[in-house]
Every structure is written in structure tokens, then in C-alpha cells.
């Protein structure tokens, strides 16, 4: 009866800070000539005006970060085609300062290896298995992982880059990588490549008997994997949301 709504509403939290990941289109800028940019932008948008209407975009300045740029003119040009820039990334310090002046946030340039790696650049499995010593795989990316022992049932391996296993993966084991997965042995457990959404990730293995294979969330269970892929080297990749298994 004697509830005091004002007090109650004061006790309830009015807001909450949370972290969230969203996908936004990125506009890579290749020229500082705003007129040229504006012209080409209009051409592009003419093709699908509804798609671009009021769409938000992140301006990537990585390719012109060492050039002089009138950022506010650039932003105006983008506004003029009804696209809303939400910030810049990859800009020089001077460009970041310009962005700050027009109240546009600056984001850190991320290593967009996933976007940059074209399909044809994905390393093919080499025939020679690496030596059986646990060490980071010999590439520039130190986050690649090399496992030379069998991955046993109940074990779980996660690699931030590529995952190379020179032994087998048992049933009931799970191997997960943000990049590609190479298995120089039988795969009897689960293998999940490109778990953060890299659709160019691939799985290579020399004997496919997996419980489950997945690339960027597109999966197939053992029931739907043909037995004819047993005991032969295969690669698994994604083609328009469909998992393709191919004898290499």
C-alpha cells in the first residue's frame, strides 16, 4: 500500500554499461580527392539506393594515413549520400585529431588478416610432417599452435591462429581454431575452423572420420559425411555457406 514509486525508481538502475560486438560496413578510402570520392560514391549508391539509405559506416583511412586530408569535407560528402559515418580507424595522429574536432570517434586499426587473406593464399598442406617437438609453427604469426601428441577424448584445444596437429584427434576430442586446422592423422573428434567467422578458413586432414566438422559456424555431422573420405587426404572449405569436402 505505502509504496513510494519515486523511491523505487531511484533504486532501479537507470543504465548499464555492457560490451557488445556488432558488424558494421567499413569504407576503405583510397583517395584524398573528396570530389572524386563523392562522384564514385553516388554512382555506387545509385545501384542500390535502399540498401545504403541511412546505413552506418566506419571510415578506414589506413591507405591514406600519410596523406593530407580534409576530413570534415570527406565526412560531409558521405553524409550527402545519406550514409552515417560512426568513426574512423587506421588514421594518422593528425587525422585522429581532426576526427576528434568534428566529434567522430577513432578506433584502433585492427589486423584484418581474416579479410585480407584471399582464398588462393591459404596454405596447402605440406607432405612432410613437422618435427615432433612442441613449438610454435614456423610462421610470423606466433598465435599459431602446433600439437605433436594425440588429442585424446575429452581434451579441447583452442588456437588463436592456425592449428597444426601432427598426430590424430580422438573421438570425443574437440579442436578449435580461429584460422585453419591441419591434421596429419585421423580426425575422429570434432574440428571447428574459423570459429570467429572467418569463412575462408579450411580444414585439412589425412583421414576424415570426424564426429563433426565446422567452418565459420557451418557444420556437418558424421551422419552426413560420406565414408568414402576415410583414409584419404581431404580438405574442407566453405563455398556460399555450403561445406565442401574435396580429395586433395
Amino acid at each position, binding site marked *: 500500500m505505502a509504496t513510494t514509486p519515486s523511491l523505487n525508481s531511484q533504486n532501479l538502475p537507470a543504465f548499464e554499461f555492457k560490451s557488445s560486438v556488432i558488424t558494421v560496413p567499413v569504407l576503405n578510402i583510397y583517395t584524398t580527392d573528396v570530389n572524386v570520392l563523392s562522384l564514385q560514391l553516388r554512382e555506387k549508391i545509385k545501384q542500390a539506393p535502399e540498401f545504403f539509405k541511412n546505413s552506418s559506416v566506419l571510415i578506414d583511412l589506413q591507405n591514406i594515413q600519410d596523406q593530407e586530408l580534409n576530413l570534415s569535407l570527406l565526412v560531409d560528402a558521405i553524409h550527402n549520400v545519406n550514409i552515417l559515418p560512426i568513426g574512423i580507424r587506421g588514421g594518422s595522429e593528425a587525422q585522429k585529431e581532426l576526427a576528434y574536432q568534428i566529434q567522430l570517434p577513432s578506433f584502433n586499426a585492427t589486423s584484418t588478416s581474416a579479410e585480407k587473406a584471399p582464398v588462393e593464399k591459404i596454405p596447402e598442406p605440406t607432405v612432410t610432417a613437422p618435427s615432433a617437438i612442441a613449438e610454435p609453427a614456423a610462421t610470423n604469426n606466433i598465435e599459431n599452435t602446433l600439437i605433436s601428441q594425440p588429442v*585424446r577424448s575429452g581434451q579441447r584445444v583452442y588456437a588463436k591462429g592456425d592449428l597444426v596437429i601432427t598426430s590424430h584427434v*580422438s573421438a570425443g*576430442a574437440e579442436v578449435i581454431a580461429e584460422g585453419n586446422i591441419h591434421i596429419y592423422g585421423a580426425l575422429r573428434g570434432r574440428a571447428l575452423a574459423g570459429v570467429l567467422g572467418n569463412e575462408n578458413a579450411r580444414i585439412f586432414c589425412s583421414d576424415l572420420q570426424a564426429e563433426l566438422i565446422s567452418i565459420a559456424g557451418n557444420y556437418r555431422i558424421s551422419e552426413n559425411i560420406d565414408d568414402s573420405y576415410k583414409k584419404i587426404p581431404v580438405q574442407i572449405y566453405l563455398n556460399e555457406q555450403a561445406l565442401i569436402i574435396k580429395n586433395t
Partner: protein
Amino acid sequence: MARIIVVTSGKGGVGKTTTSAAIAMGLAKKGHKTAVIDFDVGLRNLDLILGCERRVVYDFVNVINDEATLNQALIKDKRCDKLFVLPASQTRDKDALTVEGVGKVLNELKKTFKYIVCDSPAGIERGAHLAMYFADDAFVVTNPEVSSVRDSDRMLGILSSKSQRAEKAETPIKEYLLLTRYNPARVKLGEMLSVDDVQDILSLHLLGVIPESQAVLNASNSGTPVILDDASDAGQAYADIVDRYLGEDTPHRFIDEEKKGLFGRLFRS
């Protein structure tokens, strides 16, 4: 330097206790002072297999809790004076085991014994974990059927990640495969996994194959480790295993179906 051997499997009923009793007796008969510890607190069995159940006064948990000294609890085998048994408590449960307590007992045993055989309970919980935690060598006992093989695989994963050697990043536990209850005739009929099938899944060093044998049941019932039954195939298989573990190059037997009878095989050599 004393070595701690854990006999483990994950799955129950595959022959861990039979194996523990047999290899402990085998090592002792070779002249090595050997202790065998029953880690199956609450489901004590090893004393029965070794035929010393009527001589149990103090047990493993009493020693851990300082209610008895190690010498009071150790039972000397009547058939071989190099073999000592540390029985489990039947009235307690596995929570009575602690890392510190088990470590203390094993360290004391290491001062006077050459081999310490730890008979692990089934499962992957506390008792099994503590049985393997301090081990130097692991005998993974597996039956030639899929669920046993998968459980062994799981156990191998635990051996390589949750032992003291793994935690301290020392040389990993040496893992050996013991395939028990093997029946070559049924393998031939496709009713049982073959040695190759199991090796393919576990890729482990095969220490020996123990054939399915009536002698094992007889030995258990009479409280005599089967290795003492020289005439039986299982007894000979365990003797081979002890020899191989001690570094002898003994050829594998009992893998293929014998055309000749037992006597034919004995007289051929």
C-alpha cells in the same frame, strides 16, 4: 630410484586389480622390493585378489590420517617376501584421500621400495586422479571393445594434463597399453576389436596382450595372483609383461589364434 606405476583404465571391470596384483607379484618375484596400494577406498578388492583379506588391521586412510604407521599397515605377502600390500579402507570414501596425504605416503614408500604399484579405482574422479597424480609410469588396461577404448583414451588425456609431472612440466608419464580379455577367435569373427584396431585409436606402446582365460577367475577366487599360475596362458602373458617392462625383448604372444593346443606350443620352443 623408486618408480611409481599406476594401473588405470577409466572403465570399470576391465582387469585393473587383477593386473595390479599380477605385475606387483611379478616384479617382487624378480627380486625387486614392491609395494602395491589399493586406491579404491570404499570398494576394497586388492586384498582379496592377493589373498590377504584376513590380515588387514590398518589401511591406507589410517596411514594418511596418522592413525597408524606405514609399517603397521603394510601387509607382507606370505608367498614372496619382497611384496607388500597397502589395503584400502572399506568403511571410508574417496574424500578421505588428499594430495598431501597420498604424497606423504608415497614419499615414505619411495625410500625403501623399488616399485610402487597404484591400483586405481574406475572412473576419473578423486580416487583415480590421486592414484595417477604422482605416477612415473602408467599401465593403461583396456578391453578390446569400443567403450573401454574410449575411456582409456580419456584417461590418457588426463594422464598427460593433470598429473604432477604435467603440472611441473617434467618428462611426461610413460604410458603403456595392456590389452586384457583378448580372444583371437572372436577377433577373427569380427566380434572384438583387434590389437591393430586398438593401437590405431590409442597409438600407444603395447606392453602385452592378456588372453581371455578361465585361469583369471580361478586365481581371483582363490586369492592367488594369476601370474603364479605358470601353466596358464594369462599367467604367462603377465610374466611376459613384467619382463618387457624390465627391459627384456620378449616377443608378443596370444595375439593370433593358436592352431595347436597349449602343449603343442610348450613343446615347440
